[in-house]
């Protein structure tokens, strides 16, 4: 018995820990910190449950591996809409009951309070509106101040390196727009072989001046250390570098590609109810209103009541007219084939 006691004690401690512990996964950086501050910490304080917070870099491979092996390590996950469509239809996510979401703090029912896109997919609840834009460094830019996506491709007027994330998404859209395709027709054109060839041809005009990176965290870093004079970036990373580190960066909103991030639940998790409880909390008016701290727009109208008015012009939602909505459907269709063509093009 003497020997057994510590074992029993340990086992009971473990089981207590397991019962109330949730694993949430998101993208880290300034965004993750804001989520920790406004969503996770208040939730833990209010309910006494513990949440482990992990980072990933997007994509659905890890979720797929967990669901297919039946070894679910993540419970709640922050997904880009571009991946959501695919993950949901492949049965990797739980269906979420949107009716159970609480109304806004002003009493407006959830269905009306959320923007339409936020609840468009049955597997997710919209969390933020974010965007991919390009930014330049005032200290290193030569030839004036670029203002359009065409300027990004104009290496004569604005000499220097451009940093892009190494994947076809966003880059091909930008190439077409810079080549004169109207924003509304981008995906239509990109569906055709000629359109794809045209996009690659446009990218090829600046191929020698591109620095490729893999993770969003590299973007502000490249801009800062002189690796590039212009970088593609998630808007929040640049905003954070300007705001909290006082970097001389400038954001260009022309043809930014905006998208939503949603909270979703990994299929087969044993803590589905707790996960749902967390999502209900995290997507209520007050926690969402903390996201503009890193310049990501909340998906609920009622959240704006709490948002600092000075920040609103910096949010993607204030520049939707200049932007393009990233198409999850298009990339579910062509992500893989264009990914391959993109790799082939890179090897040339």
């Amino acid at each position, binding site marked *: 018995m003497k020997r057994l006691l510590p074992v029993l004690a340990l086992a009971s401690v473990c089981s207590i820990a397991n019962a109330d512990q949730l694993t949430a996964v998101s993208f880290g950086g300034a965004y993750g910190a804001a989520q920790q501050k406004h969503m996770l910490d208040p939730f833990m304080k209010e309910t006494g449950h513990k949440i482990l917070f992990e980072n990933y870099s997007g*994509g*659905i*491979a*890890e979720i*797929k591996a967990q669901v297919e092996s039946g070894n679910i390590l993540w419970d709640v996950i922050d997904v880009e809409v571009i991946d959501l469509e*695919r993950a*949901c*239809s*492949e*049965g990797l996510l739980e*269906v979420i009951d949107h009716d159970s979401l609480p109304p806004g703090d002003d009493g407006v029912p959830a269905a009306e309070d959320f923007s339409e896109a936020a609840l468009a997919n049955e597997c997710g609840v919209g969390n933020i509106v974010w965007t991919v834009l390009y930014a330049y460094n005032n200290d290193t830019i030569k030839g004036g101040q670029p203002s359009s996506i065409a300027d990004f491709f104009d290496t004569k007027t604005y000499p220097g*390196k451009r940093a892009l994330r*190494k*994947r076809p998404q966003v880059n091909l859209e930008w190439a077409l727009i810079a080549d004169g395709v109207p924003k509304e027709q981008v995906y239509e054109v990109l*569906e055709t072989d000629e359109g794809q060839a045209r996009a690659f041809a446009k990218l090829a005009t600046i191929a020698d001046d591109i*620095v*490729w990176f*893999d993770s969003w965290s590299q973007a502000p870093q490249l801009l800062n*250390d*002189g*690796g590039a004079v212009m970088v593609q970036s998630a808007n929040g990373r640049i905003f954070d570098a300007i705001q909290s580190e006082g970097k001389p960066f400038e954001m260009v909103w022309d043809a930014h590609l905006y998208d939503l991030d949603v909270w979703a639940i990994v299929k087969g998790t044993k803590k589905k109810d707790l996960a749902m409880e967390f999502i209900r909390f995290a997507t209520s008016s007050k926690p969402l209103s903390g996201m503009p701290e890193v310049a990501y727009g909340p998906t609920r109208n009622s959240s704006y009541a709490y948002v600092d008015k000075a920040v609103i012009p910096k949010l993607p939602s204030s520049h939707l007219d200049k932007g393009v909505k990233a198409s999850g*459907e*298009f990339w*579910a*269709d*062509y*992500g*893989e*084939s*264009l*990914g*391959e*063509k993109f*790799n*082939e093009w*890179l*090897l040339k």
Partner: protein
Amino acid sequence: MDNNSLSVEEILESKRLLKRKKRMLLAFTMPLLIFVFITFISPIATMLYRSVYHPTVSQLIPLSLAELSTWDEAGDQLPNSQALKQFAIELQGLSKERLSGKLAEEVNRLKPGSSSLIKSSARKLKKKSLEELQQSGDTLLLGYSKKWQDINLWRAVKRSGQAFTDSYYLTTFDLKRNPAGEIEQRDTQIYLKLYWKSLKIALIITCLTALLAYPLAYYLANAPSKIANRLMVLVLLPFWTSLLVRTTSWIAILQTNGVVNSTLQALGLIDEPFEMLYTQFATIIAMTHILLPFMILPLYSVMKNIDPSYFRAALSLGARPVPAFIKIYLPMTIPGVSAGALLVFIISIGYYITPAIVGGTEGQMISNIIAFHMQSSNNWELAAALGSLLLALIIALYWVYDRFVGVNNIKLG
């Protein structure tokens, strides 16, 4: 019987003892064998199997595939209406079980653009009743989109239904099957080039490490032990440092405003900074640095055991230093060189982290594409095929090496 030989009982006893000893040894190695089997052999076997056996679609729509089996896919007719109806019924079933996305993904792989078509049609079919589908499922389906009338789509559906397939291996050779079933070149040519490039990079790195390590190992082996030990620490210290730290420190050295460029610029030797980071050059130099100990250590251990008097004897017998070195010393170090070369080459051909961090696009190797298919495109079957080919390549090289140099010549320490 004389006293020196053993009696029958003694022979039996000694045989029994020997057997027991062997069994004991086997028992001691058993944990390792089991470990190797669980963590190495079985995953590789699964991977090999996965690259040819892919039953997803055949499990999702078995009845439609049975109907389609009689359809002449090389012709220009759509499958018959019975097959279309059956497909509509099964698609509805998949939609209800939330599995239509799986089918969509598989077919989309063979016919890009069909994913949204299949998913949106599945959503619409969900609301129909079974009777309706049995009666007019075919017209419903064809009515949803013109794309359903594309024969290539149905060819893709039928082909994706083959449980055993060679298509992933064809892809690794940049080949595919056309609608008539013949093998032809793919539109995108990527994988063979990458294998070739990986081989080239690995070979360059092997040569570089050998060139750098040989004189150093020679010096270490012949220096007084006090100096040799100190220098050895300099070799081992980087070896013990985290791989990521060493790789990222190369970023600091090579980047546009990095150590090298700013030094050269400060000295006035260059006006424009060199572009070194995110190139093949960066991959090669960083990997050479990281793999250097794998060449130095076997070389050192071999050289340490060479009696210096052979070389001195050659000299005293009148050989000039260079021929004496080539004829006497070099052949004796071959076991070390070949062990180091084989180690470095095999490690570098499958290297992943360093090319991913400092190589940019130009310095990519085949392993980076395998990772891409594992992590981003979710095409695990293709990743398995690519990985299998890499394994086959290494085994083939090992075989060639064994034929011409002899594996027995390897000496690791």
